[in-house]
């Protein structure tokens, strides 16, 4: 053989062997691991966790010494369930989450409160199959979010931006440096001087001497938060009672604010906005219009559990009216559950049609509606009452036109201060047709009144509330309503008939679906349907949340009052949720002869509005912001259309000079911060909260650090976080309420507030003593098995001896809970709403639209979605140009900040946009195609999925995807770069397509003109295939 040939052969052979070696490398490594590597399995149990405890055949519970089982609170969504977490003691990590059997948010029915903790472990076990009957659960998200505790995107050290805002570059700094800089200000970024919190706390000098109603300069420092995660009172203590700004608000205006506002109109309080929920367990018929229990909804799990049970074992039939099909439906429970698609933003038309049909066919509960006061209502066997029979002044041009006729109008002596207030009674007609004070009425009053009566010697046209509602309902025919909402007349009348066929055991429920350009009106109409059957406070009807316990107001410690506290911060809130008529601007313009329109809309009946904050800060109307604190909130991700405003406000230090974020992660909003203060993850923090809604028994969920917080420590040994920041800042500025001798007990003794425990443990003591008196003492065993042992030294050093075991009793059980069987007394709810329901809402009827100067309507009515100046949306953006409408529905798996939990992503990595095959055919779109969605304010690429479960004309976007932060972008923290995880950015966020209101002069996002709430339902859109 020639040597050349030999060489060629040898090289070929060598090459072959090299390829082999490469291909076989993994096999070889694995083989070697088998022989010398660590053992990865344990027989048939693989790598499964060790059980947390063992329940012997005789029921005896033995703990696993390697694990700690504790009851605390989940923040995987705003439901704030009581959960049971398993901590691996060696690593200090939470390895699994399941339900707290004591908590009604997690178990149905929940365990009697007195049950020893050890016994509660038995109750969730296989012993006597107790765990099946007493199942206590955590949802998919609640199971998955534990990942986030050790996430590489977690912020554990204070950060200061380097480079411009939102550049993604940060320098880790010490906690003390951070406090010093934000308090004292200075040339912090080499961009010129920045005023610090100390300088900005001016509680004396007005923002604008010409407009004293705006209040003092301190109002230019504001704090935006999310949901009350159980720590809001602490924050409020700093921001409002101590620092003194009026501006502190949560996410209500972009959560389900429109529903709450509409409900507030019915319940007669548009600021606190009481609301009731269907008693799913006992109802016979429920229409969910714009809320999707079991898909989302609050309480998520509780509603899901009850719905599943009621449609399977109970008597419930239900209909889900929604542009998109969700998990609220179940095809197998076919005769029980039905989906009715509706055009977005038209629920008011459906509701008014139902109201019309019910009135025309007299299917309402006349017995209920005709009771003029609570006493006669109760005597008649009702559980609530309403103002349907109350008379409204209808005399044209009368000064009181639109107001209720009152006792004082009739000559009844009423103190001047009480005139036209609660103490001034209403007037109804008696059986004889004679006016009588509602409070004096002894029986039912006529429902429909439209006549003149003699008032103070003159004839006055009056109408009953119900009469006005009837007129509003009759404005359109059933066919016209049907045309508007796209639901056939037969279905509308069918819904109305069924709804009025079950006595009190029927209900209408709504929520996020009302976040449209007419959300308030829609919600008002929907909630009014419940009034027509008088189902409030009834088993099987609608019931209010029993609520929790007040932790701030004694009986052990006064946490709200402290020496030097500012009782009520004053001035005009940044979101203009006050009557325009109170402003200097109004007075001046009135003097000039043209009081309306206001410069920008005012929302006279609304609570504080986060939706308007950044637009206000941008336009300086009513005033500018000097500093903004973002605490666990993400409006840029959550408010449709806000990103563009944020870029010009949060993005520009000249507009908002100081932005401080407090959050365990960097989100789409906090990415703009100057400073980030790390915050505790859910299993590491304190917090006490009542359920948001839907729990008929008093419940109070406690959260305590079941593991050591992972943030860096302050110089005095506290975890750097929200509490330590406010304490340190307050002390640095010498503000009241923090430091030594600031918490007063019942005997007037003073205690310090130097650490989170000083506050929360005393709050816990208050709760332990609240209600029907103190809870029992925790046993040694309770303390041991619940993991409370870990924090016992804190309890002992902070609390009085007699308090220690009571607080331990509560924390060991994850809260304080009223027994499940106390929800109802007979057929009537224990916790009742007893003020009159408003068929006609006087406050609303007599408030004026700040732009048109026209009054609002006192009863619900159908109004198409519209912009601030009243222009219908479709007039500006007609169907011919924007043939589709975008809507948002919550992901059944994700929430707005769970995207980095890899296991949720693995299951459902993306949110293709649902389009009806009819539309898709027309546009030549097929499942999997990339499409471009455009609205008048933006466009984005998305993937399409054809679904019959979305109404034609609608594009449905699942919320929770399309992140730009939370791990979608790798930030640089000093010399450490976060990892890049492309999956976190998957999909789209509808809010990036949100609309600017084209009728407004400022750069504001589209909000409901009455409630000021964000509009995410029914955005005009068009689509093309890319």
């Amino acid at each position: 053989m020639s040597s050349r040939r030999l060489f060629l052969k040898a090289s070929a052979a060598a090459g072959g062997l090299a390829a082999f070696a490469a291909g076989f490398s993994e096999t070889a490594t694995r083989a070697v691991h088998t022989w010398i590597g660590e053992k990865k399995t344990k027989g048939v149990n693989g790598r499964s966790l060790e059980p947390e405890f063992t329940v012997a055949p005789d029921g005896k519970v033995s703990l696993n010494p390697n694990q700690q089982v504790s009851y605390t609170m989940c923040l995987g969504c705003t439901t704030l369930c009581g959960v049971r977490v398993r901590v691996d003691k060696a690593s200090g990590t939470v390895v699994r989450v399941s339900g707290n059997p004591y908590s009604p948010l997690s178990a149905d029915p929940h365990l009697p409160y007195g049950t020893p903790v050890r016994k509660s472990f038995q109750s969730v076990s296989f012993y006597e199959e107790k765990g099946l009957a007493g199942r206590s659960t955590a949802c998919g998200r609640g199971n998955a979010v534990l990942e986030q505790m050790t996430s590489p995107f977690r912020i554990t050290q204070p950060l200061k931006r380097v480079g411009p805002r939102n550049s993604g570059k940060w320098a880790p700094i010490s906690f003390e440096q951070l406090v010093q800089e934000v308090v004292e200000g200075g040339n912090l970024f080499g961009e010129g001087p920045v005023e610090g919190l100390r300088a900005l706390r001016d509680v004396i000098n007005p923002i604008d001497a010409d407009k004293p109603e705006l209040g003092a300069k301190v109002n230019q420092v504001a704090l935006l938060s999310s949901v009350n995660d159980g720590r809001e009172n602490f924050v409020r203590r700093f921001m409002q009672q101590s620092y003194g700004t009026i501006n502190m608000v949560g996410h209500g205006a972009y959560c389900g604010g429109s529903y709450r506002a509409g409900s507030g109109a019915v319940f007669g309080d548009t600021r606190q906005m009481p609301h009731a929920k269907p008693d799913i367990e006992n109802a016979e018929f429920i229409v969910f219009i714009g809320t999707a229990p079991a898909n989302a909804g609050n309480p998520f799990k509780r509603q899901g559990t009850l719905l599943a049970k009621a449609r399977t074992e109970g008597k419930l039939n239900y209909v889900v009216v929604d542009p998109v099909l969700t998990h609220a439906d179940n095809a197998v429970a076919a005769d029980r559950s039905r989906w009715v698609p509706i055009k977005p933003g038209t629920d008011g038309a459906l509701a008014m049609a139902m109201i019309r049909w019910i009135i025309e066919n007299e299917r309402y509960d006349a017995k209920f509606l005709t009771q003029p006061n609570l006493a006669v209502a109760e005597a008649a066997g009702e559980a609530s009452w309403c103002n349907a029979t109350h008379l409204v002044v209808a005399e044209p041009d009368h000064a009181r036109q639109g107001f209720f006729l009152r006792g004082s109008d009739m000559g009844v002596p009423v103190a001047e201060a009480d005139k036209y207030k609660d103490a001034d009674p209403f007037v109804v007609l008696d059986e004889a047709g004679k006016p009588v004070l509602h409070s004096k009425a002894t029986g039912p009053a006529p429902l429909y009144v439209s006549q003149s009566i003699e008032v103070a010697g003159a004839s006055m046209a009056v109408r009953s509330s119900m009469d006005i509602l009837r007129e509003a309902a009759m404005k359109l025919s059933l066919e016209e309503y049907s045309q508007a909402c796209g639901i056939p007349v037969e279905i509308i009348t069918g819904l109305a008939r069924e709804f009025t066929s079950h006595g009190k055991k029927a209900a209408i429920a709504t929520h996020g679906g009302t976040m449209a350009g007419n959300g308030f009106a829609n919600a008002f109409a929907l909630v009014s349907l419940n009034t027509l059957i008088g189902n409030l406070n009834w088993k099987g009807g609608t019931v209010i949340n029993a609520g929790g316990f007040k932790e701030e107001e004694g009986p052990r410690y006064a946490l709200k009052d402290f020496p030097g506290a500012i009782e009520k911060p004053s001035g005009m809130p940044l979101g203009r949720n006050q009557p325009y008529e109170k402003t200097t601007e109004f007075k001046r313009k009135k003097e000039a002869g043209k009081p309306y329109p206001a410069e920008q809309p005012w929302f006279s009946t609304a609570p504080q509005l986060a939706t308007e904050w950044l637009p206000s800060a941008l336009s300086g109307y009513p005033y500018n912001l000097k500093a903004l604190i973002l605490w666990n909130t993400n409006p840029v991700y959550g408010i449709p259309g806000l990103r563009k405003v944020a870029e010009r406000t949060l993005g520009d230090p000249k507009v908002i000079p100081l932005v401080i974020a407090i959050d365990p992660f960097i989100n789409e909003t906090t990415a703009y911060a100057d400073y980030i203060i790390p915050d505790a993850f859910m299993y590491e923090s304190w917090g006490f909260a009542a359920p948001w809604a839907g729990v008929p028994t008093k419940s109070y969920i406690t959260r305590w650090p079941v593991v050591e917080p992972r943030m860096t420590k302050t110089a005095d040994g506290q975890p750097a976080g929200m509490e330590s920041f406010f304490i340190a800042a307050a002390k640095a500025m010498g503000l009241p309420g923090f430091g030594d001798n600031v918490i007063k007990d019942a005997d007037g003794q003073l205690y310090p507030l130097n650490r989170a425990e000083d506050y929360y443990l005393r709050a816990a003591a208050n709760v332990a003593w609240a209600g029907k008196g103190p809870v029992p003492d925790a046993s040694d065993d309770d303390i041991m098995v619940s993991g409370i042992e870990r924090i016992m030294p804190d309890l002992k050093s902070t609390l009085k001896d007699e308090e220690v075991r009571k607080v331990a009793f509560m924390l060991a059980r994850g809260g304080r809970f009223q027994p499940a069987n106390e929800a109802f007394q007979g057929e009537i709810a224990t916790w009742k709403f007893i003020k009159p329901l408003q068929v006609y809402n006087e406050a609303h009827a007599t408030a004026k639209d700040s732009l048109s100067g026209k009054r609002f309507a006192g009863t619900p009515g159908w109004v198409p979605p519209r912009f601030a100046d009243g222009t219908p949306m479709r007039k500006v953006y007609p169907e011919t140009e924007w043939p589709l409408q975008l809507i948002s529905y919550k992901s059944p798996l994700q929430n707005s900040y769970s995207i980095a939990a890899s296991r949720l992503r693995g299951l459902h990595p993306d949110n293709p946009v649902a389009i009806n095959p009819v539309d898709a055919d027309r546009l030549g779109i097929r499942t999997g195609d990339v499409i471009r969605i455009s609205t008048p304010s933006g466009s984005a690429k998305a993937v399409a999925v054809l679904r019959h479960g979305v109404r034609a004309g609608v594009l449905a976007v699942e919320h929770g995807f399309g992140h730009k932060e939370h791990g979608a972008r790798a930030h640089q923290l000093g010399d450490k770069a976060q990892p890049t995880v492309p999956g976190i950015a998957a999909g789209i966020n509808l809010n990036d397509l949100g609309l600017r209101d084209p009728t407004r002069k400022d750069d504001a996002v589209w909000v409901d003109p009455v409630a000021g709430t964000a509009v995410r339902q029914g955005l005009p859109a068009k689509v093309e295939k890319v």
Partner: protein
Amino acid sequence: MTHSRRDILKGIGTITAGAAAIVATTAAEAANPRQGGDPDRRWGMVVDVRKCIGCQACTISCIMENKVPENSYRTIVATYEVKDGDRVGTYVLPRLCNHCSNPPCVPVCPVGATFQQKDGAVVVDGDRCVGCAYCVQACPYDARFINHETNTADKCTFCAHRLAAGLLPACVETCVGGARTFGDLNDPNSTARKLLDAAKGEAKVLKPEQGTAPNVFYIGLDDRFQGRVEGHQTLWQPSKTHG
């Protein structure tokens, strides 16, 4: 029309390839005697599909409890949209190992690593498994997978480790809709048995024609979902999409 009876090819198969298949199943019992577990029990699950809300609490809790690697699932709730005429509805189907009484995954195992316990649970001895994945192929339900962290076959164990501790399987314990009921099917008083009895033949199993005799029963199982689902495929394929 029963599938197996019409499959005359089984006969031909015998001629061409010997009595392989048939011998295999009948010999299974003899060659793979049941080991471990309480012989008086027969663990099983009853899934009431009407109660399932598709929340995947079961899926995720199973993952956490059993350290199931990414992109693998011992259980998952398949979610569908069904259109029948004008009516469109949501259909959810919790899937997991059926712990078949006649498990085709067992006889194929070349090393006897997978076997059925006396209580009916079909398990894998992770210390013996060679990771050949033959059982993965043989399971008609896609209930098995190769765990890339242990490099062995993995599947639902009915949470044997929890049962041994007197606890419920993770997915059952945390089932939000209360759709999953686990218990001893031999015990006339068990909730699972009682549910089955009450369902009076309405309870169905997946792919009955495979003759596997599953012990996961469904109440409210639509025939169209019993076998391989004929429908439009979901868009995402997690093993490939995103990191």
